[in-house]
C-alpha cells in the first residue's frame, strides 16, 4: 500500500428513471480506496454491488456526486480519455468470462495489446509470457468453446492482467467455477496483490473475502 488514493467516491448516487418513478440503486456512497489495497464488496442480491463496480470501472455513469480516479474527475472525461484509462490502468474479470468466441486463446490475449498498439515482437513476448505464467501454453490455439469453465476463467484473468493494469475489478470471479478452480483463481489474485496490483472484487463467497484486506458491506444501496 502506498497511501496514494486511487479511487475516491463522494456522495455517489445512482438511480433509474422510469416515467415518473425513480428507482435508487446507490444512495450517498462515500468510499476511498488506496493504491495496492485488496478490497471486497459484499452484500445480498440487488444491493447494488455490481453497479458500484461498474461505476468504479467507468462503465456506467453515476447520477449524482463526484468520482475521482487517480485525482482526475471522471465525470468530466471524454470517451476517448476514458478508453485510454481502460487500456492502460484497468483490467476486468467477469463471472461469465466474456471471451471473444471467434478468437483463439492466443488471439484473445493478444487483443488488448493490439489496441494499445504494441509492436509485434513485444506482443509475442508478452503473450508467451502470460501463457506460461498461467500454465495454459498448450491451449493457445484452441477456441473458448473448446475449454472448460475453469480454463476460460483463467484466460479471462490472464487477459485482464496481460497489460499489467494498476487496478483489477472482478465481478463474482469464481461464480461459475468449482471449489478447486475457485481457489486457484483467488491464489492468482493474491499473487497479483503481492506484486502491487490494486484489486476490488465483488462476491458472495465468504471464502473469497478472506483473501482481501478489507470488506465493504452494501445494503440497499448504502454502505453499512
Amino acid at each position, binding site marked *: 500500500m502506498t497511501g496514494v488514493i486511487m479511487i475516491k467516491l463522494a456522495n455517489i448516487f445512482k438511480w433509474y428513471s422510469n416515467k415518473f418513478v425513480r428507482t435508487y440503486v446507490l444512495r450517498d456512497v462515500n468510499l476511498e480506496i488506496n493504491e495496492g489495497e485488496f478490497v471486497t464488496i459484499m452484500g445480498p442480491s440487488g444491493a447494488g454491488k455490481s453497479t458500484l463496480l*461498474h461505476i468504479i470501472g467507468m462503465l456506467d455513469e453515476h447520477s449524482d456526486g463526484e468520482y475521482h480516479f487517480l485525482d482526475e474527475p471522471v465525470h468530466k472525461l471524454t470517451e476517448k480519455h476514458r478508453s485510454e484509462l481502460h487500456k492502460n490502468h484497468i483490467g476486468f474479470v467477469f463471472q461469465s468470462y466474456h471471451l471473444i468466441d*471467434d*478468437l483463439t486463446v492466443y488471439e484473445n490475449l493478444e*487483443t488488448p495489446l493490439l489496441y494499445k498498439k504494441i509492436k509485434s515482437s513485444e506482443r509475442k513476448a508478452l503473450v508467451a509470457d502470460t501463457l506460461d505464467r498461467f500454465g495454459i501454453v498448450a491451449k493457445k490455439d484452441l477456441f473458448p468453446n473448446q475449454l472448460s469453465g475453469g480454463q476460460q476463467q483463467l484466460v479471462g484473468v490472464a487477459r485482464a492482467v496481460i497489460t499489467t493494469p494498476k487496478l483489477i475489478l472482478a465481478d463474482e470471479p469464481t461464480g461459475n467455477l468449482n471449489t478447486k478452480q475457485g481457489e486457484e483463481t483467488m491464489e492468482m489474485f493474491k499473487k497479483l496483490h503481492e506484486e502491487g496490483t490494486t484489486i476490488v472484487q465483488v462476491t458472495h463467497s465468504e471464502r473469497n473475502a478472506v483473501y482481501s484486506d478489507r470488506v465493504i458491506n452494501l445494503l440497499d444501496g448504502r454502505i453499512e
Partner: protein
Amino acid sequence: MIINYIKIAFRNIARNKGYTFINVAGLSVGLTVCFLIILFVRAELSVDRFHENSERIYRIVSIPEESGFIRISPMMPPLLGPLLAAELPEIQQYVRFYHANDVLIRTEESTDAAGSKQFYEDKFVFVDSTFFDVFSFTLVRGDIAHVLNQPFSVIFTESKARKYFGDEDPIGKTIRYGDGYVFRITGIVEDCPELSTLQFNFLASLLTLNTIQPQGVDLSSWEVFSYPTFLLLYPGATLTAVEEKAIEVIRKHFPRPSLAAPNFQLEPLKEIYLFSEAERHTVTAGSIRYIFIFTTIAILILLIACINYINLATARASRRTLEIGVRKLVGANRSQLLWQFIGESVILSIIAYFFAIALVELTSNGFSNIVQRTVGIDFRNDFPMLLILFLFTIATGVGAGSYPALLLARFKPVDVLKKIYGTGPKGAGLRKGLVVFQFAVSGILILSTVVIQNQLDFIRQKNLGLEKEGVVVLPVKQANPVRQHAEVFKHRLSEIPYIERVSIASTVPTQSTSRFRLHRTEKDDYIHYSVFGIDENFIDIFEIELVKGTPFTEDNRRTAALINETTAKSLNWDDPVGRTVQSPLRKIGERTVVGVIADFHFQSLHEMIEPVIMFDVNDLWTRYIAVKIHLTDVEAVLTSIKTVWDEFAPDYPFEYFFLDDAFDRFYRAEDRFAEMFNFFSFLAIFISCLGLLGLATYVAERRTKEIGIRKVLGASITGIIALIVKDFLKLVIIAVVISTPVGYYIMNRWLEDFAYRIEIGLWIFALTFMIVLIIAIATVSFQTVRAAIANPVESLRYE
C-alpha cells in the same frame, strides 16, 4: 491489427453462411449492373472522340419554322458548303456527304472461277476530297492527296475489299455501279470504328455526282436538301459569331429572298451522337436520355443491395454486442471498432467484386445485344478500368458498412454486462424505412414494365388508317429491268392465283419518302409534304379510306393528284376537289386534286402524321411493287412471284418484305428498351426479396421464444403466420402508396415521346399492387411458416 480484423471477418463469414450468401449475392448483382452501365456509358461518351479535330468539327443543321412539319434536318443544298467556306474566314475546310443505299456493285473482271461478284450495298457515300483533312479515318492504301480527286474514284473499306477481291490487290481495279457507271478503286480505308456516328462501306468522290444525277433531282437548285455538310473551323473561332455570319450569307444568296429561309445552326460533332434532334437517317443514333435512365437504374439497384446489407447488419447487430462490449473493455476506442466493422463490409464487397467481374464477363454479350453497343472488359488492355471498378466497389463497401459500423461501435459495454441486447427494437424504424424504399423502387419498376408493355401492344394494334396484313412489298432497285417494264410485270403478277391486287409505287408506308415544299399563297410561305407516286390500285391495296371526291383511275391519273386530310387542313382548303397543286418536278406542271384520303400512318407512331400528296407514279419513279395476297398458302404465292421476277430480272436477287414486319421494326428500339426494363425490374425485385428474406429469417429467429409461448397459450399456426406477416404487409402497402404517384409521373414523361399513346388506367396500378404484394408475402411466408410450425418445446428449451 488488420490481420486480426481479417481473421475475424472470415470466421464471421464462415459461421453465418446463409446471411453472407444473401449479402454477397445482392452486392454482386448490384455491382454487376453498375459495372455494365459504367462500361456502357463510357463507350457512349467516347463516340466520335477519335478524330484529331473533333473539337472543331461542326455539322450544319436547319431549324424548322413553325408552320412546317419538318424536323431539324442535317440535309443541306450542295451549294451551301463551298459558299460558306468562301465567304467566312473562320472556316478552314468543309466536307459534303451524299448517302446512297441499295446500290448494285459489280466487279468487272472475273475473279478466278467464281466469275464477277455482285451485291446490293448500303452506305455508299460520296464525299468531298477534303474528307481526310477533316476526319481521322485511316487510309490503309492509297495516296491521301489524290485518292478522292477524280470523279468516279472509290475507296473500299477493308472488309468490303476482302469480300469482293479476296486476297488480291483491288487498287486500280474497276467496279460497276448501279446502272453501269464505272468506278476506279483508288484506296483502301480501315473499317469504321464502332464508336463513330459516321459509318460507310465505300467512299467515292463527290465530283462524280455532276455526272450521275440521283433520282432525277435537279442538282443546281436550292430546293435540293440531300447533302449533310460538315465544317472544320480554325482554332479560336467563336461558334455564335460563325453561325450569325453564316445565316447572313445564306439569306443573301438564297433565291426569292422575300420568303424566309429556314434558320441554321452548327452542331458540334461531339454532341451529335447523344444530343442531336436531327433526323437519324444518315448517322447512328444514341441518346443522352438512355444514359440518364440507365445510370439512374444502376444506382437504384446498387442502393437496394446496400440497403439489404445495412438492414441485415443492423438487425443482427445484437449478436455481436458481447464481442463489442469486451473489446471496449480491453481498450478499443470507437474509431478502432469503426474500422473493424467497415473493414468487414469492405471484405464482403471485395468478394462480391470478383463475382461481379465474372458475371459481367458472362452477360456482356447479351447486354451488348440489347443496347446495340459493344460492352465488355478487355482484361489485357483495360487495367485502369478494372482498377476504377475496384475502387468503386471499395467505396460501396465503405458506404454500405458505415451506418451499421457506427451503430455497432456505439454499444455501451455496460449494456452487455446487464444483458441488454439493445438493437432489437432500436434501429427498427430505419430498417422499416429502408424496406419501404426497396419495395417502392421495385413497385415503380414493375409499374413501368407494365406500362411499357401496354404501350408497345397498343402501338402494334393501333388502327393505322391502313391495312398492313397480307401485303408483300418488292423493292425494285436501281437499274432493275422491272422498272422499265413495270406495267407488264404488274399484269403478269395479277394473273397469279391468290393475288388480289398489284400496285406500282414510288414509296410505300414504312419506307422513306421524299419531301418537297409547296407554296402557300395566303401566308406566302411553304409547307413541306411527303410525295407518293401511285397507280390506280394503291389506295385499294392498303385500304386507305377516301373521304372526298374520286380516286385515281386509269382515265384521270395523268392529270390527277390526291391529298390527305392533313394537307387539306394545312392549306386551309375546305373543298380541295378541283383545286390545283404544283408537281414537285417543275417540268411536269400542275395537277388537279380529284380526291381527299383519310390520314394514315406511314411512319412510326413517334411521329405525327404529315401532309401527303399523291401523284401518278409515271411522273416520278418506280421503286416498289406492292402485292396484296390472300393468306392461304403464302409460300406458293411467293414462289410464283419469284418465277415471274426471274423472268424479268434474272440478274437481280428476288427480295421482298411483309408490311407488318416493316412496321414492327420501327419499334425495335422500344422492344429492346422494354427487354432491358424487364431485366432490371426482375433484378431489383430479386435483390429486394433477398433482403426481405434475410430480415424475415432474422425476425423469425428473434421471435422464436415468443412464438413458442403463444403456441403453448393456444394460438393457431395460421394465427401466428398472420401475426408476423401483418407487420411486413404494412410496409409493403406504404411502399406501393409511395410508388404510385412517382411511377405515374415518370411513365407520363416517357409516353410523351409518342404522338399516339395509351392512358395509364387504374387497373395498371391495381395490377402492380397485387404483384408486389404477392411477391412480398411469398418471400416472407416461407420463413414464417417454418417458425410457426416449430415445436414450442424446442424453442422454449433454451431458457
